[in-house]
C-alpha cells in the first residue's frame, strides 16, 4: 500500500483523539505566555536590551520564546507526547496483531507513523512561529517584521527535531507503557537544557539538544545552527534505519 494512503489512514485514526487539541493548545499556550512576557517586560527591559545588543525586538522575542520560555528545550518532550498519542491507538485497542496481519508492509506502517509525528510537529512549530508574529504585532514592535529569520527559525527547528522524532517513533512503538517514552523525552529535554547552557560543546552531540541550536542567542551565525541542521538530519537517518530493522524483525504477540 502506498505510503500516502497509510499516512492518510493514520491521520483519520487521530481525528477524534485529543492529539489535534494538543497540537493546537501547546503552541497557543506558549504564545500566550510570550504575550504576557512582552506585556510585562518589553517596554521596561526587553526593548532596551534589543537596542543595546543591536538586534530587533523580533530577535529578542525569538530568543525569549526559544530559551527563556523553553520552547526549544521542551520541543523533544512535546514530540514524545505526540508519539505516544500516535501509538496509543494501536496499544489501547490491542490492534498491533491485526495491523501486522494486513497485507501492508511493515516499512509502510513504521514510516507512515513517523510521517504523522513529523506532520504534527511541523504544525506545532508553524503555529508557534505564527503566534510569535501576532505577539509582536500586539506588543507594537516598532521594527518591521523580517520574514527571513523566522523562516530560518522554523526550518532549523524542523531539521533539529528530525532525530528526536525518529527516536521517539521507535521508543513509542517498542514500549507498551506510554508514560515510559514520555518520561525519556522529559529527562532528555532536561539534560539537553543543562548541557546546552553549561557545556555547549558537548550538547552539539546530544540528540535532544539539536532543536536548541535553532535560535542560539536569537541571531543564528555561521556554524551555530549546524547541530540543528546536520545533527538532526544525520541522526534521523541512522535512527530511522536502525529502528525500522528492529521493528521489522519484532514479534508481535
Amino acid at each position, binding site marked *: 500500500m502506498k505510503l500516502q494512503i497509510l499516512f492518510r489512514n493514520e491521520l483519520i485514526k487521530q481525528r477524534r483523539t485529543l492529539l489535534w487539541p494538543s497540537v493546537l493548545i501547546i503552541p497557543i499556550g506558549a504564545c500566550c505566555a510570550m504575550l504576557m512576557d512582552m506585556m510585562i517586560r518589553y517596554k521596561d527591559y526587553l526593548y532596551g536590551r534589543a537596542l543595546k545588543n543591536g538586534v530587533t525586538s523580533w530577535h529578542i522575542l525569538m530568543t525569549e520564546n526559544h530559551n527563556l520560555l523553553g*520552547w526549544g528545550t521542551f520541543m523533544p518532550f512535546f514530540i514524545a507526547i505526540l508519539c505516544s498519542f500516535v501509538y496509543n491507538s494501536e496499544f489501547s485497542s490491542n490492534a498491533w496483531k491485526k495491523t501486522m496481519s494486513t497485507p501492508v508492509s511493515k516499512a509502510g506502517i513504521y514510516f507512515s507513523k513517523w510521517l504523522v509525528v513529523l506532520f504534527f510537529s511541523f504544525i506545532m512549530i508553524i503555529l508557534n512561529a505564527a503566534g510569535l508574529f501576532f505577539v509582536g504585532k500586539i506588543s507594537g514592535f516598532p521594527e518591521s517584521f523580517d520574514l527571513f529569520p523566522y523562516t530560518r527559525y522554523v526550518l532549523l527547528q524542523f531539521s533539529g527535531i528530525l532525530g528526536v522524532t525518529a527516536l521517539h517513533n521507535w521508543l513509542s512503538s517498542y514500549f507498551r507503557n506510554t508514560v515510559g517514552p514520555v518520561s525519556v523525552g522529559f529527562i532528555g529535554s532536561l539534560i539537553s537544557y543543562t548541557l546546552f547552557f*553549561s557545556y555547549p560543546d558537548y550538547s552539539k552531540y546530544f540528540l535532544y539538544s539539536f532543536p536548541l541550536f535553532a535560535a542560539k542567542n536569537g541571531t543564528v551565525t555561521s556554524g551555530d545552527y549546524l547541530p540543528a541542521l546536520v545533527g538532526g538530519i544525520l541522526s534521523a537517518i541512522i535512527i530511522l534505519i536502525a529502528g525500522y530493522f528492529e521493528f521489522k524483525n519484532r514479534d508481535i504477540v
Partner: protein
Amino acid sequence: MKKLISIEFFKLKRSTIWLVITLLPVISVLWGVCFVFIFRAVPADIKAEFTKVLPGGSDTWYILFSGSASLYMPLMLPILTAVIMTWITRLEHQQNAWKSLLTLPVRRSSLFMSKFITGILLMFISIFSLSFFMIIAAIALGATGPMPLLLLVLKPFISGLTALPIAALFIIISMHFSNAAVPIAIGGVLSLPVSLIANSERLWLLYPWSYPARYALGNATGQENLIIAMFAVCILSVLILTLFGLLSFKKKDII
C-alpha cells in the same frame, strides 16, 4: 488505607518510576555543581558583587542549592508530579482494571485516597533524593561551615508541599483520561510559563505552578503577606480538589 497504599507500592515495585524520580534530582544536582564551578571561576570583583545580591552569599551550600533548585523547582517538579500521578493510574487504564478493582469490597474513597497519597509519597521521595544528593555533592565539593539543613531539607520539603495543589489536580485528570499522554501534555503546557511567572512581582500568586519555584528561590523579605496567601491558596485548593476528585470518583461509572 495502609494496606491499599502498600499494594500501590507493590504495583510499582519493578517499575521504572523509581529511576525517574531519583534520576531527575541527580540531573538537578549536577546542574547545581555546574553553578558552583562557574561561581568559583569568576573573578573576585564579580564574585563580591554576586555575594551582595545573593542572600546566601558565596557559600558553596547556598550556591549548590540555588543551582539545583533553579532546575528542579520550576521545570522538574510540576511535570514530575503529572508524570507520577499518571503512572500510578496507568496500570488500571492499560489493563482495563478499574472494573475489577471497583467490584472488590473496597471503598472508592479509600482507593482514591490511596492513589493520591502514594503519588504524594513518591513526590516527596524525589524531593528527599534531591536533598540527599545536594548534601553528598556539597561535601564532595568541599563545602565548609555547618550543614544548613533548613536550606537543604526543610526548604525543598515545604516547596514540595506547595506542589500539592498540582498533585491533587493531576490525580483527577489522570484518573479521567485513559490515554497517559493527555495529563502529561497538560502538565507540560502548564509548566512552560513557570520560569516567566515565578519572576513576576505579584502575578505568581495566581499561578500555583510557580509556587515551588517561588518558595524555594524567591526572596521572602517584604513578601510575607503573599507567602501566607500562597499557603492559604494551597490548603484551600488541595481541600477543594481532593473533595471534588473523591466525589467524582465515587459517582463515576466504570464501563
